[in-house]
């Protein structure tokens, strides 16, 4: 495999490049007493092309959300490098980031807590304008709010209401309206539908895709639901215990997963009958504590294909197919794909 095949390559068309990103948290670092480190994100490298939709999938606790927030620089990464639109944002201060904020936005998982309960919907959606376009006339602002509300399928009459008067799906629309107000180039959607009723999920996903198409933005779509991710994404990255274990185009990944964990995730995806859905049924045991991850391949403790060598070293992401990378030493495995169960 050549050096160029590595996903770390500097790509001028990429809107976001992440290199060796780690996010550790010190736990128990109190006055007196030793600290432990929680490796929420550990040495993650990927890039996101313009207008591309990258799905990020993994169990809860795998570090997806942390990664999402780290690339947006809502938190300061422990190490690594984040380049957004050619600018190194890794060490920027809050003040330095402020002018970049309109171009990168986040959609939250929980539409109940991400909207300020004491602000009207109008105020919430107008907030970006208040912050970044201070000189804007109030009437113009109201117009923009009305447009945004209409764009996400709400009515301008709703601007005077408070978030708690809305359903979950509606709230998520409000959140989306807010995040697209400043026409971002990068949108990170952090489990945008997982808190919603199944019936509403599709609407929101479709709204997101619609917006992506209209605005031509890049989307980092984070979800634990492989089916949703598969529906939305161009490419998918699979995370396990803070690391990306496999990253590939949707078709390639769905047809031929190259990491046992990806296979396990497929097994959890409901087929046609939602009542059969039982997540991670093939995995033994619980997710290991991120405070003390297993040596070598972190997945080996739950992997049906684990061999002693798996414990030796942390497997690197390697090219296993066209634009298909996986971090498993057992390349020979023929894993079941999404279809054949």
């Amino acid at each position, binding site marked *: 495999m050549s050096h160029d095949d590595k996903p770390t390559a500097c790509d001028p068309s990429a809107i976001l490049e992440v290199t060796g990103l780690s996010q550790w948290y010190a736990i128990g670092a109190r006055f007196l007493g030793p600290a432990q480190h929680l490796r929420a994100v550990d040495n993650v490298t990927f890039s996101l092309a313009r207008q591309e939709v990258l799905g990020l999938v993994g169990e809860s606790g795998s570090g997806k959300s942390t990664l999402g927030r780290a690339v947006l620089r809502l938190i300061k990464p422990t190490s690594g490098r984040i380049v957004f639109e050619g600018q190194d944002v890794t060490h920027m201060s809050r003040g330095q980031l402020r002018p970049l904020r309109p171009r990168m936005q986040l959609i939250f998982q929980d539409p109940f807590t991400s*909207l300020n309960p004491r602000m009207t919907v109008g105020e919430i959606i107008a*907030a970006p304008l208040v912050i970044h376009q201070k000189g804007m006339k109030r009437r113009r602002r109201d117009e923009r709010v009305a447009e945004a509300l209409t764009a996400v399928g709400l009515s301008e009459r709703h601007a005077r209401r408070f978030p708690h008067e809305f359903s979950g799906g509606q709230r998520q629309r409000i959140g989306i309206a807010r995040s697209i*107000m400043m026409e971002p180039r990068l949108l990170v959607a952090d489990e945008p539908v997982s808190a919603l009723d199944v*019936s509403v999920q599709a609407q929101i996903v479709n709204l997101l895709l619609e917006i992506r198409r209209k605005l031509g933005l890049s989307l980092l779509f984070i979800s634990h639901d492989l089916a949703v991710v598969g529906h939305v994404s161009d490419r998918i990255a699979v995370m396990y215990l803070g690391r990306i274990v496999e990253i590939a185009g949707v078709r390639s990944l769905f047809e031929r997963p190259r990491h046992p964990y990806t296979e396990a995730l497929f097994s959890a995806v409901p087929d046609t009958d939602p009542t059969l859905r039982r997540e991670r049924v093939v995995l033994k045991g619980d997710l290991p504590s991120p405070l003390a991850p297993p040596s070598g391949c972190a997945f080996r403790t739950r992997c049906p294909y684990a061999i002693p060598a798996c414990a030796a070293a942390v497997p690197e992401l390697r090219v296993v197919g066209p634009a298909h990378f996986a971090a498993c030493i057992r390349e020979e495995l023929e894993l079941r794909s999404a279809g054949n169960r």
Partner: protein
Amino acid sequence: MSATLRAGDVAMDDAVVLADTPESARGSRPWQRFRHHRLAMFGSAAIFILVLATVVGPWLIPFDELHIDIRNRFAPPLVGGHIFGTDQLGRDLAARLLTAGRLSLAVGFSAMLISASFGTLIGVVAGYYGGLVGAALMRFVDAILCFPTIFLLLVLAAFIVPNVAMITLIIAATAWMEVARIVASQIATLRERDFTLAAEMLGASGTYIMFNELLRNAIGPIIVAATLTVARAILLEAYISFLGYGIQPPMASWGNMLNNAQQYLGSAPWLAIFPGLAITLAVTSFNFVGDGLRDALDARMDIG
């Protein structure tokens, strides 16, 4: 641009539902709860009457509260047209009681405004920034809370030239910590909410987040604390005036009327009884209202 998206582009079945939601449902719930709180309503009425009486009352009484009639000292209630009697200088007690109330209530309100604003400021900053700044501020609050209020108040009062503004200030200086604590803990919790992160994501400054986003969520507890602070401030004014460090003559406050009255407890008890009842009534009313507001604005019931 968002304008290029039209409503029809996406399915919006769930969006249609809320067309009929009653307008401003949120605004009325606490108010209804408050209106059903009998003591709070009693308190509100009493405060209204007190304020009205102290503002308008002095004009309705045919005596000037400062006019000394030295030969008519210690007239008992109802004698010579003085419904509450006269004081040690022959001044009409009712007139003095009302103008004193004006001052005591004004001191209470102003001290509340100052202490609530300052406490809120400290609390918001401490709660939002946390870390070293927050810890330093909250330790400062703790340190001041270590003093029994009266001790602190007296130490301050013993060293200033007593006038209304200074008295108000020192009362405020000993009453802001509670608000600061409440606000700090509220803000610290709110700070962890996603909407704070959302604001940060929008590129909002710390000041914007603190005062535009977070503060409005802590307003309920602040209002409750502020109401109770008025009650406290009225009491504190009475305490320091009683101990001789408060409002100076000839201006009357309920506290210094009591201070002057205790000497005549045996011979002219009405001098002590009426101001004492006035203080109790005012303070109780504010406490009732505060209690009612606490129930009505209970954050758990309301925040999304």
